[in-house]
Each structure stands twice: as structure tokens, then as C-alpha cells.
């Protein structure tokens, strides 16, 4: 905030709020329009949070820094605007806005300019501390085990959508009640890329791709695998050899100094940052040590992916779910 000369940071995105506060509030799927759910005041360093209770709120945020929900947007802003150190704020960072909140904010803080708080948050969140990495590692362990449950449950007659439930149930057995996204379980078919799980019945011999992730204590990890239903068919064996060769080449490039765009251009690749939720990476962002990314590669009909910690000289997979053994 100092660097960017931001006096007040107003965060509507839950991942940003989680990052600055450590709070675990109720999870809602999908996008939400901007509302002031969290505020950081430069003059005091205080984090103020929208919450009627301290349940799930770290103890370093005292009750007087909590403000209750209101259906009146003015009442929602009033405690933030009235917080110590906010009066006279000139530059207010927001991570999104609605026309209504822009009007109210500029009315309540006359003369203040709204600036991009999302890019500020993105730059701050990228670099992970050792504690952050441990939290992501814990999330990765849950994702791995829930992936194993899906693989165990895969048998002829089961539908793709049933396996989404299997993933979630195992995830919850670890005390994690929030997926990072609805698991995408999809029978491999020529020319089609499943974008979500359907009620398609999985047959003996089908190849099935699974991409899934969790938010554990607010930290994200995801993993992707392809498994055959039943025995691996001989015609599928060479696909794995091709995938592994492409994957190993890809992971080899996942090291400090590589531009994100270069990895994305290497094939059908999905690459983004992870931390206290999904993190946007631009093509011209460069991988740096102590950043964590989710990398997926779809090649020769096979989908696989890991959550990777970029280290000083390469990367380390944080997810470790087993792959199918190809004889």
C-alpha cells in the first residue's frame, strides 16, 4: 500500500480477504459483485472484516474491527469509512466495483480516487511464505486422497457426476467442506473436451480424466489424472508414453525465469497461480522462486496435472496422487 500510495484497500473478493485476514467465512460458489467485505487501513495497519461473529476469524483481529452485515449498502460502508485512519483517504484501492458502490464511496469519501486494488493484491499474493507453502501442502494432501477415492470408486456403471460426489465426500472426511471447483470427471472421447461432469455412464475400458481441487483452511490445491475404468487397454498404452514425454519436457521448463506464456504455448496447457484461491497469471509474468502454480497438460487424450512449488532451480510437486502404472 505504501509503494502504490494506497490509503485504504477495500476488498470484495473472498480470496483477497482470506489472504489479508486469514478469516474463514462461509463459502459461496461463483462470482459475487463487489461489496466491501474487508478493509485494510494504511494509517493504522488494521484489517476490518464484515462478520457478525469472531467465529472463524483469527484472534489478531479484535471484535471492534468486525462490522455486521447490512442490506443497506450505506450501512455496509459506514463502519469502514468511519474506521480510525480512513478520514481524508485520497487513494482507495478496490478489487472490483459496481456503479452503485462507486457512487456511494466517492460520496462518502469526497475527493478520493478509486485505484486498482486487485493488481496490488496479485503482486503481494504471488510470493509464498514457508507457512503458506505448508498450508498449500496440506490442501494438496487432501486433494490427493480425494482423487484416490475417485479412482477407487470408478467402475462400469458409475456416472461421471457420481464421482464428483465421491471426491467431495472424501474431502469432507478430512474436515474440508469447500472444493476449489466442481470436480471435472470426463470420459475421453475423440474431439471433445469435457468442461464439466455429466450423467454419462462410464463403461469398462473407458479412459476417464479427472481434474479436481480443494480449498482447505482457505488454501487451494488441485490435481489432475487420467485413469482407465478397469484394465488399461493396449491401444491406450502409447498415449501415456506420449503424455509423459510431453509432461516431463513441460515440467522441465517450470523453473525461475520462464515466462508463463512460454509454458502455455507448449501445448494444451492450463497454468495459473494458486494460494488463498486461484491466482491470475498473465503470459508475460515470469515464474519466480517461492511461487506456487497449478499446471495441467492435456496431450494424446491424457490429462494430468499437479500443484507445483517453484524452487530456486526448478519445481517440486506438492500433489502426489498416484498415476496409472503403464506396463
Amino acid at each position, binding site marked *: 500500500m505504501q509503494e502504490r500510495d494506497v490509503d485504504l484497500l477495500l476488498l470484495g473478493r473472498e480470496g483477497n480477504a482470506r489472504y489479508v485476514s486469514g478469516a474463514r467465512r462461509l*463459502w459461496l460458489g461463483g*462470482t459475487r459483485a463487489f461489496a466491501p467485505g474487508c478493509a485494510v487501513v494504511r494509517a493504522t495497519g488494521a484489517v476490518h472484516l464484515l462478520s*457478525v461473529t469472531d467465529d472463524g476469524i483469527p484472534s489478531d483481529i479484535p471484535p471492534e474491527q468486525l462490522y455486521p452485515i447490512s442490506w443497506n449498502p450505506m450501512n455496509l460502508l459506514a463502519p469502514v469509512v468511519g474506521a480510525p485512519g480512513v478520514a481524508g483517504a485520497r487513494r482507495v484501492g478496490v478489487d472490483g466495483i459496481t456503479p452503485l458502490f462507486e457512487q456511494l464511496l466517492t460520496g462518502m469519501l469526497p475527493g478520493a480516487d478509486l485505484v486498482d486494488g*486487485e*493488481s496490488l493484491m496479485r503482486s503481494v499474493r504471488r510470493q509464498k511464505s514457508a507457512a503458506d507453502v505448508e498450508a498449500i501442502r496440506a490442501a494438496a494432501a487432501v486433494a490427493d486422497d480425494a482423487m484416490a477415492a475417485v479412482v477407487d470408486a470408478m467402475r462400469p456403471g458409475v456416472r461421471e457426476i457420481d464421482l464428483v*460426489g465421491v471426491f467431495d*465426500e472424501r474431502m469432507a472426511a478430512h474436515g474440508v467442506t469447500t472444493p476449489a471447483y*466442481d470436480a471435472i470427471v470426463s470420459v475421453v472421447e475423440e474431439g471433445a473436451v469435457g468442461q464439466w461432469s455429466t450423467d454419462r455412464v462410464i463403461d469398462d475400458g473407458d479412459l476417464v480424466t479427472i481434474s479436481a481441487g480443494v480449498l482447505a483452511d482457505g488454501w487451494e490445491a488441485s490435481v489432475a489424472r487420467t485413469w482407465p475404468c478397469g484394465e488399461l487397454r493396449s491401444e491406450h498404452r502409447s498415449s501415456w508414453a506420449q503424455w509423459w514425454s510431453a509432461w516431463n519436457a513441460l515440467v522441465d521448463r517450470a523453473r525461475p525465469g520462464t515466462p508463463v506464456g512460454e509454458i502455455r504455448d507448449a501445448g494444451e496447457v492450463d497454468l495459473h497461480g494458486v494460494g488463498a484461491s*486461484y491466482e491470475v497469471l498473465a503470459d508475460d509474468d515470469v515464474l519466480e522462486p517461492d511461487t506456487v502454480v497449478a499446471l495441467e497438460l492435456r496431450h494424446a487424450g491424457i490429462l494430468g496435472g499437479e500443484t507445483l512449488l517453484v524452487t530456486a532451480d526448478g519445481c517440486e510437486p506438492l500433489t502426489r496422487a498416484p498415476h496409472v502404472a503403464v506396463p
Partner: protein
Amino acid sequence: MTAPSFGQGGLDLARMRRDRRRMLVDAMAANSLDALVLLGQNNVGYATGARAPVADAARAGARRMVAIVTPDDTALFTSFPDGVPPELSDEQVLDSLPLESDIGARALVDALPEGKLGFDELTMPLRAALDGREALDAAVVLSAAKTVKTPDEIECIRRAQAINEEAMLAVEGMLAPGVYATALTGCFLRRVFELGATSNTVEPIFQVMPRRIADGPYSATGDLVFPTVTKHEPVGEGDVIWVDTGIDYHGYKSDFGRTWVVGGQVDERRRDQFRRWRGVVDRVLEVVKPGATAADLTRAAGEVDGRRPWLAHLYLAHGTGTDSAEMPLIGTDLGSDFDEGVVLVPGMVTVFEPVIWDDGHAGYRSEEIVAVTDDGYTMLSNHHYAPYE
């Protein structure tokens, strides 16, 4: 796996999309807007029928679909071709734009039509790319269209609710002392997908209630704290559990609320709490019909033992549809003048969630969903009240 029974109503998704678009265009005309620019995924889905996979907000936002809606045309920017409805032509469907970048934001601004534009939300690069061009708030238009549901939309809510209720039978079956509250979440999530839910969009709540407010977590309002995140802890014999869940069926949300007692022992005081809750619901439903105001409903709910029988920071009732809590909001802190101005019309869907609380003895909370009809209402929820009845 048995499919839930869905009642009589048929469902025609193409007709539903047509009707919604017509209502949206009417609302645009009534509010003098020439185009809507929609970034919220529920809003894009409502306006176009397009589907994106459900994900945590950050991922959903980064991969968001965007719609530009004018009276004569729709443009949909999406990276999910499987989710594009068939009536949209190839010319109307465009590659998704990264609105967290200046390049993507400029590309969207270049595609905007002339005239007055309503936005549901903006990314900061989009706001910058507008370069001072006026962005009006689309909330009023969206709310006007969404508040009144067509029979197809009501059928989606009914089906969402039926799946939610059916899944709860499995959860109820496993409720016992020593079971982790999070395991109830796991059972619920597994079952809703098996039963045909499109997704789960609200973290399921199984909250063990304190006997007294003072025993519970800190309350900024002094009132009861609910909801809180489900704990990874075992439930105990006699625990009072408030349940609140919502799933998604073709974009429409269910809302299930019940009170359970672990072990099923309900004493006379608890039974009386349930009867008082039932009394509030009955009194309120009696006045639900077109023309009644939200204030009529809060008056009918009255006071029970000196307090308004709902959570002060929430509401007596809220609408549900493509958003889990939408208009009409009834009994909120917007106040009684606001409630006087909210008039029920046929097609509104409201979720009633009164609360009875006896400090020292916990309380009772359940939810009922109704759709307002031409001369009254029809129930969309249909679930038992065990172990209270």
C-alpha cells in the same frame, strides 16, 4: 438411487430462456437502458442461458463469461462452448476476454454498443478502459426481471428443492452421537450430485447451536450468531443442529432449513418451540397473496415472546432464484418503509425462515419456500419435521 418426484410441472428450458430475455428487455426499456453488460455469472446465465462450471469465486471470476444484451441482440463471450444454448448463432458467441487485463478490457469496450449502458459489476481494468463513459447500475433492471418467475423457473426451483430434500434423507439417516458435522456435509454433497444437482453453491451448514446466546461465539449485534462454518467436530447426544443448505439446478437455487436434535429426544419445551414456529409460518402464509406487502407479512409474523421471530441481521423471508438471496427481501434492516413498498405479485418465490429462541434452551428454525400464485401461494418445499413432529 431413486429419482425425486418432481410434481406435475413440465420444464421447457428453451421457453424459459426466451421468457427471461423478454422480461429483461422489458425491464431495460422501463429503466431507459439501451444495453446491459453483465459480468456476474448468475446474471450472464439468466440473460443468455449460458453455463460455466461452478467454482470458487476467484477461479469463476478469472474465467468468467460476459454478456452484452441489447433489445435486438446478444453477444456472449465464453470459453465454455458446451454451455452455449443452441439459439445463439456462431456470430453471437465470441472467445472469452480476460477482464483483469487492459487488453481484454479494451476489447470488451470496443464491442459495446451506443447508448446508455447498465453494468452489474466492473473489474478495475474495465473501469479504466471505459475512460469516463457512463456506467449505470444494472441491479434495478436485473432485479425487476428476476423477481417474477415464469412457471419454468418455478419448476427449476421445485426440482432443486426436491433434490435437496431427498439428499437430506440420507444425511438424517447418519445423524448420531459421535458423527462429525463435516461428515454430514460429505454425505450431503455426494448425494446431491447423485440425484442430479447441477452443483452445490453454498457451503452446507450444520451448526451446533448453543443453549444461550452468551455461550455461543461472540456476536457483534448481541443477537444469535447464525450461520457459522460447519465444524470438524463430532456432534453429541442432545445437540440442537440448525441446518441450512442450497444447491443449484439449471441455475436455480434451493434453500433447505431444518432443526435437528441428535439422538432424536425432543422434550415438551422443544416441541413447544416447534409449535410456535409453525404458528408464525401459518400466520404469515395466511396473508401471502398478490397485493400483500412485505410489511403485511412482518406484521402477521408479529412478535413472539417480545422479539421479532427472525434473525435481526437477516430477514423473515427472502426471494430465491438464480441468486440464493434475492428480492423480495422481507423484514431486513432496510426498515419498515422499505417493506411497505415491496408488493407481492404472482410468480414471486419467497423463502420464509422464522426463528424461535428461548435463551437457555436453544431454539427452532426451519425454512419453507412458496411461490405466489394468482390467488395465494403454492408450496415448493415439502419435507418432514422430524424429530419435532
